[in-house]
């Protein structure tokens, strides 16, 4: 860990502050921190609980030169922010983390072992309450199919030397896709989920894939019915930099009301999905921040896949690229003439 400290200390010579992590967050796991002096940087760590996408702070620190420790996935947010001219490449120093072996789902540990249980989440091993466990069991869902092991933009590289991520991705795809369930539209969303084979071992995305549109509609109604309109999904998103002029809350335009209603919460998420089209880097912070556990990434992942299929584009992989919805191709669009 002294490695990350010295890298941060070196970068501090070039910037006003560095965004990184300290070990002493709530629950005894890493929490975001910022360092302005070499002494402060002594408390910097990097371990498998450094899940936060620190890029969310960059648009708020435009008046400063900022160093940022960025995992591969985080670096896509940085790249996307640069592409959208939201931040100036010259004013950001990226310490890219290379060679991660996937990050740990602390919430899962807490759920199974109690909040605040001592966790030693190293890059290559995991100890819960002093006992080593199989870290693959506790990897974050989003890390399982990681395609971003190499930071897109970086000025310095921090070699984390974790286990190869490809092995993890393979290990994760053990469950076969479930056959169609032939569900009738009369089922409630909960019933649909049960019938679709809801159990711990099956990721929600598979259940979702097995639902027909009506079932999904009911599924989302149920999911959205518990939305408390806290806007954490938006605030946690590095790409949601409209901040206080976000159209989820304005009356001009008045796309959605401020009431708590599944329909309005649905509209709110539709706005988010729409606004992040071609911009979402799939970091998953919205879903992680959601206090009521709405699986927001189901929609984001779907849209990211559709955009990749349609336009061959992945947001945040090229700071110079022209985003697909801000341009067009007279002839080359995949859409067939109707």
């Amino acid at each position: 860990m002294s490695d990350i400290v010295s890298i941060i200390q070196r970068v501090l010579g070039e910037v006003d502050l560095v965004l990184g992590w300290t070990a002493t967050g709530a629950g005894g796991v890493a929490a975001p921190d910022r360092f302005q002096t070499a002494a402060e940087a002594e408390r910097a760590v990097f371990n498998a609980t450094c899940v936060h996408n620190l890029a969310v702070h960059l648009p708020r620190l435009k008046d400063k030169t900022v160093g940022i420790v960025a995992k591969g996935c985080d670096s896509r947010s940085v790249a996307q922010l640069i592409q959208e001219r939201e931040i100036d490449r010259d004013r950001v120093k990226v310490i890219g983390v290379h060679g991660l072996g996937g990050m740990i789902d602390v919430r899962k540990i807490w759920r199974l072992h109690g909040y605040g249980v001592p966790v030693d989440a190293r890059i290559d091993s995991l100890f819960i309450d002093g006992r080593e466990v199989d870290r693959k069991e506790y990897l974050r869902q989003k890390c399982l199919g990681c395609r971003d092991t190499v930071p897109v933009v970086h000025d310095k590289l921090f070699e984390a030397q974790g286990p190869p991520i490809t092995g993890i991705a393979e290990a994760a795809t053990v469950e076969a896709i479930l056959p169609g369930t032939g569900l009738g539209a009369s089922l409630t969303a909960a019933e649909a989920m049960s019938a679709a084979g809801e159990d711990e071992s099956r990721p929600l995305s598979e259940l979702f894939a097995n639902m027909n549109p009506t079932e999904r509609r009911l599924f989302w109604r149920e999911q959205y019915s518990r939305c408390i309109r806290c806007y954490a999904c938006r605030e946690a998103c590095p790409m949601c930099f409209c901040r206080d002029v976000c159209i989820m809350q304005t009356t001009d335009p008045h796309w959605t009301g401020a009431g708590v209603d599944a329909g309005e919460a649905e509209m709110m998420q539709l706005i988010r999905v729409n606004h992040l089209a071609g911009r979402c880097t799939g970091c998953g912070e919205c879903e992680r921040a959601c206090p009521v556990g709405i699986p927001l990434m189901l929609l984001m992942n779907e849209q990211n896949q559709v955009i990749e299929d349609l336009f061959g584009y992945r947001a945040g992989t090229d700071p110079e690229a022209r985003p697909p919805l801000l341009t067009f191709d007279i002839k080359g669009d995949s859409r067939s003439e109707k």
Partner: protein
Amino acid sequence: MKFLAGENIAELLERLSSRSEVWAPRELRGSGGTVMFERWRSGDPLDLEHFASISAKDMVLPRTEKLFGFSYAFGGAAVGNPFGTPAEPAAGTPAEPAAGARTAGESIRITAAEPAGNVVLFGARACDAKALDVLDALFGQTEGKGYNDPQYRARRAGLTVITLACLTSDPACFCSSFENGTAEKAGSDLILYPVDGGFLAEAVTPKGESIIESGVNSRDKDDSAREPGDGDPETGEAASGPTLFEESGLEMPVLAVTAMVEGLEGLRQKLAAIFDDLEFWQAETEKCISCGYCTYACPTCHCFNIHDEMRGDREGERLRSWDACMFHLYTQETSGHNPRPTLAHRYRNRINHKFSYYPENQGEILCTGCGRCIRGCPVGLDIRDVLRQAVEASAGPGEGGDR
């Protein structure tokens, strides 16, 4: 103390739900293990092990509630009848309105919100129940106290709280920092203490007593969902269900003691001392992303917004919904000026409101130590650290000492 067998919980809820809505903690499907207080219906599972992510203040201060509905009504008759020739107003049509007057014949109809029904909150914790007591101080559970919010009062009056006492805690809990901690009884009507095979039941209020004494020892007469053989509704004969609460000589279990935050005495003065130390507040909030989760999950945060929502141009509702002081828009003025322009300003207000202003105005600390804001914070911000550091900073030499 009466004893309630663990296997009778479902029957208890069944009976309670015959005359009230019952809300109880449950893990939600597809939520990645989120536990929330949800409407309980027969057969629904319970999760009495995990702590609900969002507090129970929903019961008295819904996330959104309709204050009233309104619609624009029109009495204007057609002008120039029969249609086809423009003509002077027909007889009976109001005279042409004066310049600036309302549209002829327009009136607004108000429809009251439906009255709140009875609700039983099952499985709250002492910190949740205490929070209701804290809110009562503002919203006016009793005459002459608070500002007597009628909707709040109606909901509060119809609410029965069955609390589950805490024998264990987690590192985020810090209720013991305030008065009675896990032994707090305020706000609860009935407290269930986990013991071997079930719970010891302690009635705190007459509502709680009535549950033990009469209300649920037999099925309710008006239970429309009764099974055959449950008794004759016409005769009012008691249903032949089992007796749920039995006499017991079991000993009270030992309650958990949660983390303490030291140095909270005189916190008002200490916070006042660092009020102007904006650097302090900036340092405390630098990792905050102002998501507002802490305020929404908090059992005592109660700021709300009132807004009209139109459906079409003719009708709408006036709604009250939760707001959060961590949002930029919270104090945004129409002019564009915001007196609390930064996160640091807003967080300072949050802390001061909880530990200074509310105690000063309402006589209660606006925090019960439930720890939700700590457990769920996406960036791992711990309010206890802030309090500790505030205490420390206020003691520091020359730091805003003259405040």
